[in-house]
């Protein structure tokens, strides 16, 4: 089988058509000829601007005639904001705990209309700046307002802290006012968690069943047959035949002919009463068992 290349399928088809191995043009032939497949571009990393290439690579004056200086791998994508982000989250570790919406949309969000030279104060983008807004502001100060990077960072973070402080104070004051007025707030997250824990601990409690009938219904009843084994004589089947002729049907479980309510099923737990009941039951069972003896439990005359 000769080697087949996906990118040369149309050339192979034209060869087949020329040599009459294919009788008629396939339906895709003209379509592919009108839109021929493009060859793979030269294997070199993409041309990148200084915007997102790390500064140490962008500034390096590499001589392309030296093969070791040629980059054969795609370059890293890194922004000025990355250094600012690193410093910001070192200084404000709990900002990383603020929830961020991951809701997807059909398009990416446009940047805020206030940007570049127009953006002079962090407050212009709202009263509740996020970490990302602060970092963008610091980068803007550095790029468009000619602040040195450290000072840009300090200015941005100072404004961020003031706005956060204002918001925290306002929120706390509003909460206190609401509490004083008497607005009912629901349980806090901590209280909700405690409630869940209590609920879970309650499942460990052993509760005595009060409903005896429910207990009795659930109980797996089993027959307790007290057998008194006597080695009877072997009647050579004569007893069996006799009973059969007389029309006495065999009853192998004479104990269960009538239901017997024992003291265990009753509510009162008198020990003495229980013992008396047991004795009575035993006697009754013995009487029933001794009435007809099919299995030769007792010797029969």
């Amino acid at each position, binding site marked *: *089988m000769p080697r*087949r*290349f*996906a*990118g040369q*399928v*149309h050339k*192979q*088809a034209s060869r*087949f058509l020329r040599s009459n191995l294919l009788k008629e043009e*396939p*339906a*895709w032939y*003209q*379509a*592919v000829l*009108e*839109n021929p*497949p*493009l060859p*793979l*571009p*030269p*294997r*070199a*990393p*993409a041309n*990148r601007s200084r915007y*997102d290439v790390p500064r140490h690579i962008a500034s390096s004056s590499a001589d392309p005639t030296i093969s070791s200086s040629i980059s*054969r*791998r*795609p*370059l*890293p*994508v*890194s922004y000025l904001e990355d250094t600012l982000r690193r410093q910001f989250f070192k200084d404000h570790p709990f900002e990383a705990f603020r929830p961020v919406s991951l809701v*997807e*949309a*059909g*398009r*990416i969000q446009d940047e805020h209309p206030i940007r570049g030279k127009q953006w002079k104060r962090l407050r212009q983008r709202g009263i509740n700046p996020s970490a990302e807004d602060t970092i963008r502001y610091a980068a803007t100060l550095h790029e468009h307002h000619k602040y040195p990077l450290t000072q840009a960072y300090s200015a941005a973070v100072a404004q961020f802290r003031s706005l956060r402080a204002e918001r925290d104070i306002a929120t706390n004051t509003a909460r206190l006012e609401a509490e004083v007025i008497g607005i009912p707030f629901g349980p806090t997250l901590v209280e909700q968690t405690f409630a869940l824990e209590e609920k879970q601990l309650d499942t460990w409690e052993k509760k005595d069943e009060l409903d005896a009938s429910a207990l009795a219904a659930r109980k797996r009843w089993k027959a307790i047959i007290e057998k008194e084994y006597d080695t009877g004589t072997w009647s050579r089947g004569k007893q069996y035949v006799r009973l059969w002729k007389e029309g006495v049907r065999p009853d192998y479980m004479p104990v269960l002919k009538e239901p017997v309510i024992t003291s265990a099923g009753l509510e009162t737990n008198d020990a003495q009463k229980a013992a008396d009941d047991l004795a009575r039951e035993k006697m009754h069972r013995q009487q029933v068992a001794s009435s007809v003896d099919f299995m030769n439990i007792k010797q029969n005359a």
Partner: protein
Amino acid sequence: MSSSLLRQSLASAAHRSKTGHRVGRLGQQLRCLNTAETSGEPLQTQEDWAAFQTQRAAQKTLVDHMSQYGSTQTRENAWQPHHSLHRPLHPQEASLSALLASGAHMGHSQKLMNPNFMPYAYGVRAGITIIDLDHTLPLLRRAAKVVRSVAARGGSVVFVGTRPDLRTAVRKAAQRMGSQGYHVGERWLPGTLTNKLQMFGSDVVRTEQVIPDLVVFLNPIPNLHAIRECAIDNVPTIGVIDSNADPRIVMYPIPANDESTRTGQLIAGVLSLAGREGVAIREQELVLAREQEEKRQKARNARETQRAAEQSDP
């Protein structure tokens, strides 16, 4: 904007019980000036007219001032997650923004990058290869053109997406192309093209066309056998090539993220819409051809009747 007029209009708004929620022709919320309850009495004096004018001016100020706030989002113009599957984009609507939002730029780990993928790799970030969408967009449009042309010539297109999340996307893509669209959502049976006599039987192979005219792969790496079969049987292929794949395995590579469901749905949607257009072009051409044939038939019949009439009356 004058604040006194605004205060006036706000005061009057507070007294008004109803605000007119007008709905426009296209279903969007309209902000109308004449939402207030008119008294119904015709204006008589000059003072009446002045009062009417000031009221209208106050309303206009209120509407103009408040229009910059508030949301214009409705259920119709808000994007919902099912739109990427049920409302595909036209090839001209597919933009860099849409591709980025679907996560098409995220490739695999930089260590796993295929060396032949280098021209389509923008860079490396967070340990993964970032795919250059400036290459992706024109290649996607080119693939759409191919699908449209193949469909316009009556060719059959097969959409292959053998992952559970791509199954519905390829099914819908095939449905959009009607009788010319097919899909493989479960597994490409090896030997579908190379062992067709066994697969389909000699009668089917003789009477019907078993080899497709174009195959679109949404996840080419698990379907390399299928790609090879297409190359053997001279079938052009389109494929979504991720950074760990060689772009030359298919005829028309679309460098994009093959793991993202949204990206697969977007690309399948774009290509199937182009295919639907091609199918419509084909239907039109067939209708035209039929009409022309009928006209020619009528002309022939007319000529024959004329000749017969001439022969009968010499």
